[in-house]
Structures are given as structure tokens and as C-alpha cells.
């Protein structure tokens, strides 16, 4: 599988540089530095430098909740903007035959949700948009997402559509367009808060679930 990493955004570049720096510093401090310690160091550095309290990659400027229309796994029309308005929402583009980043990211989201307060767990919307128009039908998506959300009170929403509809959804979400039949796609998970803006996104990391759990509580006013 192939994954295109985040857009070349200044803030993202800075955050990545800081993450690398954080890891280096943690490595210098202790030869057996744990992942938790390393991420805390990174978060502290981010806090100090860009004033952000987020553990994910800060988005500057914030991105409004996008409007796009696709179909959900029951075949009904799903208007992302109005259907998820006002609710904390995690939006991710991927495909079911992806063996690597996609299942790991969905597992990280599930693991994050299991650690947040029950009310937030129930109201958080997780939306997975397929980039593989040919293979990922409603039935394939439903079976796939059911492996991850089985113990969650609110089920993941799987969306599919025509190639032009999927492209339009990615453009509206400011995500790099997927290529190679959807197999080269952005690994970014966008988090929209209850104010309908995304101020932070997440990339695959050893502590992605911890970062999502932390920032989800911030954008929903729990913390």
C-alpha cells in the first residue's frame, strides 16, 4: 500500500521538526526512554513554541467543517456538513485493502475513544471515506468498520461515492487527492470540534491514540 503524508504546510513541517527534536532529546535524556515519556517531551516542546495545547499537528488557519455529499453504508445520502454539525468529528480517508496505516489509524481512533468520558464517547462521530471507488462497496465498508467499532456506543460512518464525489470531498476537506485508485492517500485524521472548526489533525505515530484522546477532550470542552 502507499500513503502520501500530509500536505506541505508550514505548521505541519514545524510540528514534524519538533517531533523529531523531541525524540532526539528524549533519546539523549535516557537510553531506555519510554514512548510515553518521549511524547510528553514533544507535547511540552509544542506547547512552548507555538502556544498550542494540542498534541496532534496544529492547523493554521483552522479549517471549517466541510460540506460534501456521499452515500453511507445503508445506501442513504449523507451530507457530512449538516449530519455531523456541532458534534466532535474525526474524518479519515482510506481504503479497506490497505494493510498498514488504515487499520492502525482506525484502531488508534477506537482505542482513543475507549479512554474518554462516556458522554463524549457517545457523541463523537467517526467518518471513514473510502478512496477506493471500485472495490469498497457499502457491504465491504460495513464489514470492515464493524471490526473496529464493535464495542463502541456510536458506530463509525463509512462513506462511498463516485470518483468525482470522492475527489470533491477531499478538496472540500483540504486533503491531498488520493492517487493510484485510492491506494496513495493522505494519512491525516482531521478533528472537527463542537464549534465546527478543525484546529488539529493527526498522523500515524506510536502514540496516535493518546494524542487523539487528549485533543478530542480539548475541542469538545471536556478539558
Amino acid at each position, binding site marked *: 500500500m502507499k500513503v502520501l*503524508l500530509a500536505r506541505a504546510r508550514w505548521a505541519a513541517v514545524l510540528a514534524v521538526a519538533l517531533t523529531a527534536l523531541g525524540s532526539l532529546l528524549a533519546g539523549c535524556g535516557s537510553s531506555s526512554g519510554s514512548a510515553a515519556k518521549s511524547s510528553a517531551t514533544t507535547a511540552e516542546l509544542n506547547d512552548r513554541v507555538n502556544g498550542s495545547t494540542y498534541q496532534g499537528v496544529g492547523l493554521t488557519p483552522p479549517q471549517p467543517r466541510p460540506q460534501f455529499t456521499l452515500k453511507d453504508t445503508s445506501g442513504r445520502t449523507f451530507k457530512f456538513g449538516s449530519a455531523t454539525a456541532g458534534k466532535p468529528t474525526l474524518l479519515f480517508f482510506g481504503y479497506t485493502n490497505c494493510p498498514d496505516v488504515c487499520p492502525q489509524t482506525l484502531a488508534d481512533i477506537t482505542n482513543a475513544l475507549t479512554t474518554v468520558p462516556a458522554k463524549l464517547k457517545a457523541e463523537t462521530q467517526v467518518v471513514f471515506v473510502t478512496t477506493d471507488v471500485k472495490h469498497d462497496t457499502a457491504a465491504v465498508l460495513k464489514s470492515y468498520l464493524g471490526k473496529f467499532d464493535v464495542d463502541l456506543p456510536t458506530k463509525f460512518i463509512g462513506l462511498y461515492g463516485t470518483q468525482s464525489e470522492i475527489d470533491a470531498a477531499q478538496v472540500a476537506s483540504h486533503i491531498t487527492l488520493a492517487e493510484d485508485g485510492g491506494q496513495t492517500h493522505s494519512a491525516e485524521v482531521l478533528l472537527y470540534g463542537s464549534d465546527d472548526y478543525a484546529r488539529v489533525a493527526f498522523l500515524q505515530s506510536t502514540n496516535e491514540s493518546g494524542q487523539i484522546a487528549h485533543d478530542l477532550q480539548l475541542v469538545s470542552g471536556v478539558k
Partner: protein
Amino acid sequence: MIRPPLSLLVAGLAVLIGMAGLVRGSIPQTAAADSASSVQTAPIVVGGAYVREPATTVNAAAYFTIFNTSDTPDVLTSVASGAGAAASLHSETASGGMKITSAGLTIPAKSSIALSPGKGHVMIEKLYGTLTAGQTVNLQLTFARAGEVLVTAPVVGLLAPAPTATGPK
């Protein structure tokens, strides 16, 4: 009759032993892969191997860390698995994408490379059956210098944490 001084004899003997030592020392360098009785650390050690339980029946990904304990770079040239009819090595490209690593994966001398989500994996395709947590998958890794290395990787549940890799002692 002139007898050579004892000290000269001892010195000569020392040189001979020293040379023999040098020759002996060079043997494991070239024949390490064939030397079954070698007490040295294996040149390639693989740790933290696991296969993520797949969410589909199409393919699965295996992850591990390769430690090269030798003084020479080695190249992982091919992979095979007992869980599926096809297996290929995928790793991250310079542009942040991921693709089949046809040229092999070089592990620098006295170094290690970790395959982890987003960084690289062995993609197992044409699965022979359903993979579930608790099972194990055999992986055969072939290195240009170290030869074949067999790895037994546990299947880890979809939502379970990844095992951590411990290096050679």
C-alpha cells in the same frame, strides 16, 4: 655450534601464533553464514516481530525490527511467509509514500531498521486462511550476507498494542 638466544625463539613463536590468530580471526568474517557451530552472535537478529490481525481476508501486514550486529552492511533481499501465497517488502519512500522495495532493504553495519505502521511492512497476500490473534506466522527473510533468517511472528489483535522490539544482548 651457535644457539640462537632463547628470547629470539620466543619472539618468533609469538609472531607465528599472532599470524595464526589473524588468520583464524578472518575465518568467521567470510564463513559466518555457513558456520553452524559458531558461538558468535548471529550477524542479523530480528526482534519485536508481529502480524497485525487483518480487518479483511485480503492481506495482512507483518512488522519487525532488524538488528545488524556485524561490521558490514547487509541487505534484506526477499521475504516469504507461511500465511499466504505471496509476500513483498513495502517501505516508505523519500516523498512519504510507500511502495514495494524491489532493490531490497539495506541495514547499515552495527545498526537497526524498524518496520512499523507508516514506515514499512511485509505485506502478506493471497492468505491461506483467516488470521486471528493468538496464531503465529512464520516469516522467512533472506539476506545477501547472512542468508536465511526464520522469524516466528505472533498475530496481534486488531486493537491490541504492538509488541516492543528488544535488541540482541
